[in-house]
């Protein structure tokens, strides 16, 4: 059925994009964090 | 930013000073007259090529008038702030402690005057090119609509133009910021103009409620601009 393709696609797009964004955030944070001393991060 | 710095001119005096200066710059340079007006008119002609049907053109004429106005607003706002940033005059205005609210109102008024002229010519072009026509009553509605719409457009244009003025890539940033905001003006002004033109047999009385939308928009963004211009401009 054609509809099934659309339904699967919407879930793949939804969680795929969220996952990709989350990965991007973590990757960029990791890059910046090399230069920032650990004790300056209030959340740790 | 404080708007009442002691020793500097007041907000109203500044607004008049800036508006007079902007209009004088236009009178001398004729950039809008020689470049923006022809641009807007050529857009109207291009619409005719694209739509390619007298009946369709007659039907969508009001929308095209305001669409051409919106495109021209982008160019006019850019020009208005290019005058200020070209030789660092904006820096001088800030370093002279000139009240930002006064700068906003002045530039907005000058822009509004120029826009009124543009809209008048575009309506004329619609009459000639798209066979639009209107009665006396329609003319009154049209003038009122144009006043409220240009006031709103000038307010938003000045506000976001000032924000984009110092930025790199301001040519692309300005449309991105401006176009979503002015959707109500496009909708309201187009509908009101449809009634004024009697497009699709719409009565003139149906146009007046749309004017309310335009007035609300103009008032809200004039006030917002007067308040927010300082913080946006300031570094």
């Amino acid at each position, binding site marked *: 059925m054609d509809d099934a393709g659309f339904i699967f696609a919407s879930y793949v797009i939804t969680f795929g994009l969220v996952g990709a964004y989350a990965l991007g955030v973590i990757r960029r944070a990791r890059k910046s964090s090399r230069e920032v001393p650990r004790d300056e991060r209030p959340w740790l | 930013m404080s708007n009442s710095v002691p020793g500097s001119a007041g907000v109203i005096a500044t607004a008049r000073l800036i508006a007079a200066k902007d209009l004088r710059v236009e009178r001398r340079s004729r950039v809008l007259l020689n470049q923006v007006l022809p641009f807007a008119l050529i857009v109207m002609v291009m619409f005719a090529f694209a739509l390619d049907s007298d009946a369709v053109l007659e039907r969508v004429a009001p929308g095209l008038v305001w669409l051409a106005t919106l495109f021209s607003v982008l160019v006019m706002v850019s020009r208005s702030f290019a005058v200020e940033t070209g030789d660092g005059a904006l820096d001088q205005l800030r*370093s002279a402690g000139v009240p930002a609210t006064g700068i906003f109102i002045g530039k907005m008024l000058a822009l509004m005057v120029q826009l009124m002229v543009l809209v008048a010519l575009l309506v004329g072009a619609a009459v000639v090119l798209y066979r639009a026509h209107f009665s006396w009553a329609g003319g009154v509605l049209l003038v009122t609509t144009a006043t409220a719409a240009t006031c709103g457009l000038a307010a938003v244009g000045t506000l976001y133009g000032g924000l984009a003025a110092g930025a790199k890539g301001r040519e692309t940033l300005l449309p991105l910021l401006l176009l979503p905001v002015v959707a109500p003006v496009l909708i309201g002004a187009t509908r009101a103009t449809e009634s004024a033109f009697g497009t699709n047999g719409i009565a003139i009385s149906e146009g007046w409620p749309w004017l309310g939308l335009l007035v609300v928009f103009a008032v809200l963004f004039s006030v917002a601009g007067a308040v927010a211009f300082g913080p946006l401009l300031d570094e």
Partner: protein
Amino acid sequence: MIAHEPGIDVVIDLSDAVAVLGSFPALAGATLSVNRGEIVLLRGPNGAGKTTLLRLCAGLIPLERGHGQVLGIDLKNDRELVRHRVGVIGHNNGLYGDLTVSENVRFWGRTVGATRAEVDAALRRMGLDGRLADLPVSRLSAGQKRRTALAGLVARRAELWLLDEPHAGLDATGRDELDQVLKMAAAAGATVMVASHELERAAQLATRQVEVVAGQVREIGAP
């Protein structure tokens, strides 16, 4: 270093001031004190931070770290209050090219409510009356533009003049006139800080010279 009371006679009082351009510390801990009526010459190589120092004192850029007062006003909190009392002419003159000389000067004068007579006096003082007054600024030479900009400062009654390379592009007469104006302004109670490469000329003019090196200020002593 002497700590100054924020009195009326100390016009500029910076201590360990840091100001940034983007993320570059163009001023890296500058300490400077200037009294009313002084004409201070800023020396130093390009990129030393002279322009940034001038813009900081004009309240145009934020004081990132350290302390600073101009005309008794704290730069950290009330930087915008400094502005209308300070005139800064940088690499740009801040003029409207399509307007005439007199229109430009009148515009800047009127931002502080100057009268027509004051504007005319400013034009005369800078030798801009007569034929030049009615020329559009875009048709002027660089020196004439500079003079127009300075006439704007006179018309604006600025108390502190911050000038970035004001001699650049001026012919010999223009420079003499400029020096005259600066001396007159200082005698009338204005304070002048000039960044200039014209060391000999500016040294005659200045009451004090300081050197800006790598974002810091060093006294050279009275000439």
